[in-house]
C-alpha cells in the first residue's frame, strides 16, 4: 500500500475547512446549547421542547411518513409503467411528463400549491367545472394535506427517476420468463422487478425523507396555522423569542429522527452486504 499523500491532504484541506467552519462548528454549538443550562449538563430544554411541541413532533413524523409512503407507492407505479408497459405512446408521454417538478425549488412549489389548493384555487375550480364537485363542497387544502401534496409533487419525480433508471438496468430475461409463465405485469413488477431495485428505492426514499425534514418554506407557505412542522417551530422560537436553547433542543430531536432513518438504511445495507458475501 502506497504512503498516504500529504500533498493530497493539502489539496482537500481548504474544502474540509469550510465544512468544519459552517457545519461541524455550528453543530457543536447546537448540541452545547441544547444540553447545557448555565454551563452544566441539563435536559431542561428538552423538557420544555416536549411540553410545548410534542404535538408538532408527532405531526412532523406523520406528515413526512405519509409523504414518504405516498411517494413510494406512486414512484413504484409510474416507474413500473415506464419499465413494463407495452404501450409505446403511453411510456413516451409519461417520460416527458413526470420530470417537470424535479429541479423546481421548494419555495416555488410552495407558491404554486398556495394558489392551486386554495378554496378558490384551480383544483377546486376544475373539479366544479367538470361537475365532479358541488361548489358548496369545496374546501381549502391548505393544511397538512397541502404539505403532503406539495412534498409528493416535488419529491416523487426524483424517486421515479432513480427507480426507473435502476429498473431499466435489470436483466430483462427474468421479466420475460415471468411473463411467459403467465404472470401478470403487476405480479412481475412486485415479485420480480421490485426485489431487484429495493436498494435504489430505499436510498431515494431516505434522501427524500431527510430533505423533507429540512424544508422550512413549504410548511410556512402552504399551512400557516397549528399544528405545524418542527422547522417552523425552530424559526418561531428564534425570531419571536430569541430562544436558542429550546430551538436547539428541537434541532437535536430532528437530528435524532435523521439518525433513526440513517440507521435503518445502514442496517439494511449491511444485511445486503452480508447476503452478498455468502
Amino acid at each position: 500500500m502506497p504512503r498516504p499523500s500529504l500533498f493530497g491532504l493539502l489539496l482537500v484541506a481548504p474544502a474540509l475547512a469550510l465544512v468544519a467552519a459552517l457545519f461541524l462548528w455550528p453543530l457543536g454549538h447546537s448540541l452545547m446549547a441544547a444540553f447545557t443550562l448555565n454551563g452544566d449538563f441539563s435536559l431542561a430544554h428538552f423538557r420544555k421542547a416536549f411540553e410545548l411541541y410534542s404535538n408538532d413532533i408527532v405531526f412532523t413524523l406523520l406528515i413526512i411518513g405519509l409523504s414518504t409512503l405516498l411517494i413510494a407507492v406512486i414512484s413504484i407505479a409510474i416507474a413500473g409503467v415506464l419499465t413494463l408497459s407495452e404501450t409505446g405512446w403511453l411510456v413516451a408521454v409519461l417520460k416527458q411528463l413526470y420530470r417537470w417538478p424535479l429541479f423546481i425549488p421548494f419555495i416555488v412549489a410552495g407558491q404554486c400549491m398556495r394558489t392551486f389548493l386554495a378554496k378558490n384555487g384551480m383544483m377546486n375550480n376544475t373539479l366544479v367545472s367538470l361537475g365532479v364537485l358541488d361548489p358548496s363542497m369545496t374546501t381549502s387544502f391548505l393544511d397538512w394535506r397541502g404539505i403532503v401534496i406539495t412534498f409528493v409533487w416535488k419529491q416523487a419525480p426524483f424517486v421515479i427517476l432513480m427507480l426507473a433508471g435502476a429498473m431499466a438496468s435489470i436483466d430483462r430475461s427474468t421479466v420475460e420468463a415471468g411473463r411467459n409463465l403467465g404472470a401478470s405485469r403487476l405480479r412481475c413488477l412486485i415479485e420480480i422487478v421490485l426485489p431487484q431495485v429495493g436498494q435504489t428505492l430505499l436510498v431515494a426514499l431516505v434522501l427524500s425523507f431527510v430533505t423533507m425534514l429540512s424544508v422550512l418554506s413549504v410548511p410556512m407557505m402552504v399551512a400557516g396555522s397549528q399544528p405545524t412542522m418542527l422547522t417552523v417551530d425552530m424559526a418561531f422560537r428564534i425570531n419571536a423569542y430569541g430562544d436558542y436553547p429550546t430551538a436547539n433542543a428541537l434541532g437535536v430531536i430532528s437530528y435524532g429522527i435523521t439518525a433513526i432513518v440513517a440507521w435503518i438504511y445502514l442496517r439494511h445495507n449491511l444485511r445486503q452486504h452480508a447476503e452478498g458475501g455468502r
Partner: protein
Amino acid sequence: MTTLRALPVAVLKVFALALFAFAIFGPLTNLALWSVAERWYTPFKLPVTYGLRYWEVVFRPTGDAMASLMTSIWIALLTVAVSLALAIPAGYALARLKLPMRAAIMILFLLPQAFPSVAIYINVARIFYQLGLTGTVGGVVLVHAAHGLVYAVWIAAAAFAAVDRDLELAARNMGASPLRAFFTITLPLALPGIIASAIFVFLESLDEFTGTFFVGVPQVSTLPLLLYNASMGGNYQIASITALILLVPSVLFMLFVERFLRADVLSKVGH
C-alpha cells in the same frame, strides 16, 4: 374480441394520463395565470382582467425585484467561484491521490446536505452575528458554498476519475511538468463534468431559501426571500412572477441535464 377490449383500455390510459398531466401542470398553470392577472377575486374561476402591469413593476430597473434578481445572480456567481476553487483541488485529490480515511472525507462533504439544515443555520447565524457576517453577501455566499460543496466535490472527483490516466502519463513521459499535465490534459478533459457541477451549485444557490432566511436578513434580499415576503403579504402577482423567474433555469436544467452529465461521469459520482 381484442379490438373490442382494446378501446376501453386505451380510453382509460388516456384518462389516467390526462389526470397525471393535470396534477403536474395544474399548479404551474395556476402560477402562470396569477402572473398575468391584474384583478382576480372570488367567485371568478379565471382572472377578471389580464395584463402585464405587475411584470412592469417587477422589471422596473429601480424596483426591489430587479435588485433582488441582481443580488441573487451575484451571490450565485460568487458561490460557484468559491465552490470550484475549493472543489477542483479536493476533487482531484480524491480521484487521483492516496488519502487516509477517503470514505469518511467523502461522507463529510455530504453531511451539510443530509442534516436537518434549519438547526444548523440558526447556529451559523449566531456565530456570524458575532463575526459581523450576518446580513452580508459574503456570509450568504459562505453558507451557500458549504451547502453546494457536496455536488461540486463529488462531481469534480467523478469527472477527474473518468479521465484516462494514460493520457496524463503520456504527457509526463514527453516531459510535461505535473502542473502542466494537469492544466493541459486533465483539467480540459474533466471540464464538462466540472461545468455540470458549477451549474448544480449555481442553481442550488439561486434557489436557496432557508440559509438566506436566517443569515442574510434583513440586508440581503434574494429572489426566494422576495417571493416569500410577497406571498405572505398576499401579493400573489409579484410572488408568482418571481417564482416564474426562478422556474426557468430549473426547468431548462431538467431538460438538458443529461447533455452535461455523461453516463461515464454519472456512474462514478459518490465513489
